């Protein structure tokens, strides 16, 4: 899908400081070598299966299906992975790669804390130093995850610059990487940033759609009609879509965080409200003003609260292969509560954006149609915040 300079259509590229170029080239070369290395792949598969708990289940949500009265709904249960989200898939791959490259230290950004927890976990497992950059506002929204990261041995650096959210955590992790390159790997958490990250992260997350495809063929004997996933940077979505991209009959739907609505400034729906730009190492769509200043985006979900989208998603949008729809805070919170009550599954507030869209479209589809929703993470981390949203004050 990508050419040698890491382009997806017009998107992607390597817009980074000269200081990082050799590190990025070294990473690209190492990845090109190890991705086809038998020993590397055996080790990674063993980690994914025995440590992370793969394959993740494809669960038939029978009660939800009956309640909505339309398409048959399956949930791809990435929330059941070790550390509670899909983030571990990418992190185990990158940490193993970094180890093979002789790196002894991992740094990463995190929004909701899921990627930070996954990175801290892999660092603990592989005896690596770990520093996580997290927007100060997010450290407050996701205090439990900050504690988890520290428990796992990571240093958590609260980022106070800019809007003190995910984009600033990415900027600060990039700054840290330019300071210390020799022993440090930047374990980027989404399909964004400079090439080769969008490709590496996509490949490590593609396990989701590889499994989904085999599982649905076994259960139903056919492909689904739609695959739905939430999109911030877009790692669980691209992982959920990837092996279905050639199957034109499968509708691919990414759910963006609309915050208080795409007609307000308090939104993070990049494809729906952004325009083409160059930021954080890539050309893609970004929420920005007319002078190219990156917009202070907003979503109830710290993990989707990012002003850009991965370059492969931008291209899937351009070529019409995937559709990107906005989902508001209120819709996501309702879906968070709905899935908890109806199926006994508390989804991450990020994943609840995908659930919300399924709730909208399933009743409009025939009963012989099939929808797969990726539940990218579990929602324990979000309970206190959702309670507050509903006016209940919980002390964690």
């Amino acid at each position, binding site marked *: 899908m990508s050419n040698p300079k890491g382009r997806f259509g017009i998107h992607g590229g*390597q817009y980074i400081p*000269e*200081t990082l*170029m*050799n590190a990025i080239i070294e990473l690209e070369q190492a990845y090109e070598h190890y991705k086809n290395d038998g020993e590397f792949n055996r080790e990674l598969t063993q980690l994914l299966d025995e440590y992370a708990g793969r394959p993740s289940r494809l669960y038939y949500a029978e009660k939800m299906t009956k309640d909505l009265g339309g398409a048959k709904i399956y949930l791809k249960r990435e929330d059941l992975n070790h550390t509670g989200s899909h983030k571990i898939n990418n992190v185990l791959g990158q940490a193993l790669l970094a180890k093979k490259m002789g790196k002894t230290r991992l740094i990463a950004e995190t929004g909701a804390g899921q990627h930070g927890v996954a990175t801290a976990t892999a660092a603990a497992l592989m005896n690596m130093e770990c520093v996580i950059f997290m927007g100060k506002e997010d450290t407050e929204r996701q205090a439990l995850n900050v504690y988890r990261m520290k428990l796992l041995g990571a240093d958590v650096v609260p980022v106070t610059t800019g809007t003190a959210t995910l984009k600033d955590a990415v900027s600060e992790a990039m700054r840290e990487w330019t300071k210390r390159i020799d022993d440090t790997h930047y374990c980027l958490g989404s399909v964004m940033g400079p090439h080769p990250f969008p490709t590496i992260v996509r490949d490590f997350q593609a396990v989701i759609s590889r499994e989904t495809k085999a599982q649905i063929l076994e259960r139903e004997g056919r492909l689904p009609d739609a695959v739905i996933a939430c999109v911030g940077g877009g790692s669980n979505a691209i992982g959920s879509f990837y092996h279905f991209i050639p199957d034109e009959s499968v509708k691919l739907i990414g759910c963006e965080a609309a915050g208080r609505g795409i007609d307000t400034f308090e939104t993070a729906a990049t494809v729906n409200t952004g325009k083409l*730009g*160059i930021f*954080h190492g890539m050309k893609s769509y970004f929420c*920005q003003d007319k002078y190219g200043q*990156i917009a202070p985006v907003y979503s109830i979900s710290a993990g989707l609260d990012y002003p850009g989208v991965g370059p492969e998603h931008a291209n899937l949008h351009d070529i019409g292969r995937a559709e990107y729809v906005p989902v508001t805070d209120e819709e996501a919170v309702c879906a968070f509560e709905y899935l908890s009550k109806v199926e006994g599954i508390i989804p991450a507030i990020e994943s609840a954006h995908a659930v919300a869209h399924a709730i909208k479209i399933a009743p409009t589809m025939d009963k012989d149609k099939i929808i797969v929703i990726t539940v990218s993470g579990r929602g324990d981390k979000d309970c206190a915040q959702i309670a507050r949203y509903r006016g209940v004050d919980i002390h964690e």
Partner: protein
Amino acid sequence: MSKIKSAFENGKAFIPFITCGDPDLETTEKVVRAAAENGADLIELGIPFSDPTAEGPVIQGANMRALANGTTTDKIFDMVKNIRRDINIPMVFMTYANVVFSYGAERFISICNQIGIDGLILPDLPFEEKDEFLPICRKYDVDLISLIAPTSAGRIEMISREAEGFIYIVSSLGVTGTRSEISTDLETLVSMVRQNTDVPCAIGFGISTPEQAKKMAGIADGAIVGSAVVKIIEEYGRASAKHVGEFVKSMKQAIS
């Protein structure tokens, strides 16, 4: 021939960096004049960006202050037009790729040419991506400045051979900001650059004192000072022109 070359014809070049609009554009204009009158050979004008990923805390702060008071690319163009009525030393813009891209690269770069901006420094545009803007820069005679870092091993020849205007040698790893010590082997770095090009080299990142500037200018053709200038502006605000002028004078004397 690039006008930038003239900046290196008056002994070693002293190149101050100023964030436009910090604390406001009227002050920036005064500061630029003071720097030019006190011996600056070339001035780097920073167009503020919301997320300056190559900057340390000092210049990040200046970017935020400038944007908070409503500084825009168009207002900066107007300020440069005013300055160009009587200031003739070369001036370049330092900003981020998205500021140029979102304005419309051709529109942005053609205006640079009209208002007398001689070059463009984009820290997030490495050699591999320079075709994004280079053909347009060539069309409008605006030099696209190349950067070389301590980690550029194996890339120096490729970058230097195609360099124009001057080469910005990044003294240290990390982001912009003052440093008590610069440990990179810059002599070797500069000599490798000089084997491949006659384009002058200026060293930046971490230089704040006359002693450091003297040492760096001894190695290369000039010294670039950003954070130390921005700190003076942060301290003295609207009254900073005189103080920046004195600082520029002391730095230029030190390297002469």
